[in-house]
């Protein structure tokens, strides 16, 4: 039976998107592509039209692209009303209205929340205010940091060696700047990729002239009389002179504006079902509010139905497309967001890619290539199955391992591959600082090639 309410929505409904960045834009484009003819409002607190963030820690810091030149390419015209430079400040779920900080209210029939994350600031506010202390999340951040790097600081300190921190350090070295990286864990990237790969990343940094200090914390930043940062103090009692500090301590979800709205939003993000519909605080799924991108947490059948929050470019795009599709679909035509996580980074001339959820892995096996040559594929295992994979300059194989993950193939892989070396003869502990241990559960495999024909096959616990 045709759904007349849905027809009305498609032809003259009001869809509001909060968060005018990657997920917001791709959702809007998908809505128009699927024939949505109603009104579309894009609300974004940044004054810019949607732009791309990954270049900010790569080409922009190298001076190969300007921060202002990172506008996202448009797939099609979206004919939207743009409310840029104004944050949404509240949500009236019953009245179906988004409140804006300037006092305006925007009514909606369907709402997409794509407010993403922001950089976690340096915890000491006064120190964070010092001239020369940066975070890197926005175009403005990127422009300011690039300008400061142009001035040739004598030393840059990067606090935190996750992907962004490591990329910033890489950019510094490529520009010939002295850089120190301080990391609480024993190596860079351990949170995402574990200690075995972290050790490779550490060597990579040191070989490239980074002064990498691990197992250490920055306890304080010190300014000079003019309010410029001049030094940092470490937990081992040492002090380092530096003119620029980049705080790279991860992200915080932009959910504060939803406080008290009744939506299930908090510091860990906004929980939604696999169809991208947001939960309210009682755990009931809403029918008119959808979530996509970095701010979302959604259950993934392949990974024990855990709620995954993924700060991945590809996830934002795929989830936005699914949310847009589902907004305009009858319940039986809705699709699950069952994108297999995938991530890339470039640093120190190496192309790093991962697929699946390496951090769930307890063991790793180098199935191809060699870590010493910095060209390899590592496969992560969890409870006898392949759960993730990482490649260093070996990305062409990743597609195969994605398929292995989706079909819950056994770990360690029982087959030989081309380029298997001695170090890949058996698995070793993946060495994550705090392995997350989800419960035993049934097995689910994914199949199908296009989003429309992806299928789940459910196999009760073995």
């Amino acid at each position, binding site marked *: 039976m045709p759904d007349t309410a849905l027809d009305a929505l498609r032809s003259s409904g009001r869809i509001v998107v909060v968060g005018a960045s990657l997920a917001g834009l791709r959702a809007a484009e998908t809505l128009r592509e699927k024939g949505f003819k109603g009104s579309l409002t894009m609300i974004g607190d940044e004054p810019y039209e949607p732009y791309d963030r990954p270049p900010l820690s790569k080409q922009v810091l190298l001076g190969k692209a300007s921060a202002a030149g990172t506008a996202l390419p448009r797939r099609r015209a979206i004919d939207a009303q743009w409310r840029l430079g104004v944050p949404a400040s509240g949500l009236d779920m019953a009245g179906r209205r988004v409140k804006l900080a300037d006092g305006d209210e925007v009514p909606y029939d369907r709402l997409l929340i794509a407010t993403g994350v922001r950089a976690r600031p340096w915890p000491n506010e006064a120190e964070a205010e010092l001239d020369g202390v940066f975070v890197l999340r926005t175009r403005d951040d990127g422009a300011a940091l690039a300008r400061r790097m142009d001035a040739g600081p004598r030393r840059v300190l990067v606090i935190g060696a996750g992907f962004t921190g490591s990329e910033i350090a890489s950019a510094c070295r490529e520009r010939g700047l002295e850089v120190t990286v301080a990391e609480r864990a024993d190596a860079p990237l351990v949170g995402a990729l574990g200690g075995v790969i972290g050790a490779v990343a550490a060597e990579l940094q040191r070989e490239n002239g980074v002064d990498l200090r691990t197992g250490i914390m920055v306890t304080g930043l010190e300014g000079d009389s003019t309010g410029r940062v001049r030094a940092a103090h470490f937990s081992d009692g040492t002090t380092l002179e530096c003119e620029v500090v980049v705080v790279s301590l991860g992200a915080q979800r932009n959910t504060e504006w939803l406080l008290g709205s009744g939506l299930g939003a908090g510091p860990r993000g906004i929980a939604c079902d696999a169809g991208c519909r947001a939960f309210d605080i009682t755990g009931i799924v809403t029918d008119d509010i959808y979530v996509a991108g970095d701010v979302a947490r959604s259950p993934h059948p392949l990974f024990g139905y855990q709620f995954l929050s993924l700060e991945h470019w590809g996830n934002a795009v795929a989830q936005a497309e699914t949310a847009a599709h589902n907004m305009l679909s009858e319940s039986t035509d809705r699709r699950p967001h069952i994108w297999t996580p995938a991530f890339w980074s470039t640093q120190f001339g190496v192309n790093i890619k991962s697929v699946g959820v390496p951090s769930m892995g307890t063991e790793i096996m180098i*199935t*191809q*290539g*060699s870590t010493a*040559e910095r*060209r390899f*594929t590592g496969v992560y295992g969890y409870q006898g199955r392949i759960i993730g994979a990482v490649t260093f300059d070996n990305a*062409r*194989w990743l*597609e*195969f391992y994605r*398929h292995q993950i989706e079909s819950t193939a056994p770990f360690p892989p029982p*087959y*030989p*591959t*081309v*380029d298997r070396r001695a170090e890949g003869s058996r698995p070793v502990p993946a060495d994550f600082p705090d392995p997350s241990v989800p419960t035993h559960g049934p097995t689910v495999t994914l199949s199908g*090639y296009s989003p429309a024909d992806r299928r789940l096959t459910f196999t009760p616990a073995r």
Partner: protein
Amino acid sequence: MKQGILTDILDHSHRADPYPLYAELRKTPVYHDGEGPYVVSTYHEIMALLHDPRLSSDQRNRTAGAADPLAEEDTGDSATLPPGFLKLDPPEHDRLRRITNRPFGPPHSPHRIESMRGDLDETVKNLIDDIAAGTSGNGEGTERIDLVDQFSYPFPVTMICRLLGVPREDEARFHVWADTLAASLDPDPTADQAERAKVTQDARMELGMYLAGLIEDRRKNPRDDMLSHLAAATGEESMSTMELLSTAALLLIAGHETTVNLITNGMLTLLRHPDVLQRLRSEPGLAVPLVEELLRYEPPVQLLPQRTPLVDIEIRGVTVPKGAAMWLVLAAGNRDPQRFENPDRFDPDRKDIQHLGLGSGIHSCFGAPLARLEAQKALSELARRLENPRLLEDPPPYRQNAVLRGPRHLMIACDGIRP
């Protein structure tokens, strides 16, 4: 050895239109008739296998005697030259390909192909001018052209010579060797086999000696060509002289017959679709999507006979045993209705055009940027300059070769050749 549909595919009588056979083949995505190779013909399976690290391109992983009617007889090249990276697995493959890429493409040499545009334009112009000069009618009456002999054949060899840095005065000798080697890829049941093998072997030897001399010279007097750069490399990222020789031979062979066929198939397809030919004259930008669609619709490399599994692998319920011969039929995958809408329609406006014509994965065509540019330029210029071209024979006579499939001659009539 009776192999049903595979015998038909290899049979020359089906060369002009193998596509109905491929459609038949796709009904059994992994075809195996008991003794022959395992033949994969559906798009998604081929794509997955091209990215599967359990598959080797190295013949040494084949079980001795694995039945394959396309298995190469030992032509002696393995005795004289090590295999090129096309037939190697990582890490050797990756190392050699990486070194070869340094003077060829980004990131180290982003301008190599672009810088060949001038040579390319000039070569195309000269070839068509020669055709114009050689034909009798000069404006009046009908001109007859064999596109293969007069254009498609000489063009790619000239470009490889320029790429490698073969001096112009030696190009003619290079053409003779290249033609002999190309002919050796095309079995001729009527010829004296021993005599043919000897001719091929001689050409190979002479080419090898010539290249060795050239490399020696470039070591002393380097220029800005690929051989000079490859010869000058030192340290870990450099090749031995033998590796360099087999790489140069690989570039010559892999870039020759393939491009010949792309251009010939392209012109044939255009003459069969006059509306597209007409559009190409008025929309120069059409050349880019047109060549992509050609690589899907009439791919010069019809199948890859090179792969061998390192372990038993299961594909669509069929277990392909370790060491077995496998064929990946790119041309069948390119017309898989599960992947492409209206796959048998030639449609240069197709948006979704991830074809298999240049392979995929680590062995995906090394020369792709050059091949594309050559075909785009050649077809645009032929479309522009030939007046009212038409096919004199359809289908044209095809070469024996079922893998590198293409016409032996393409006879065209036209009313004249524009300047």
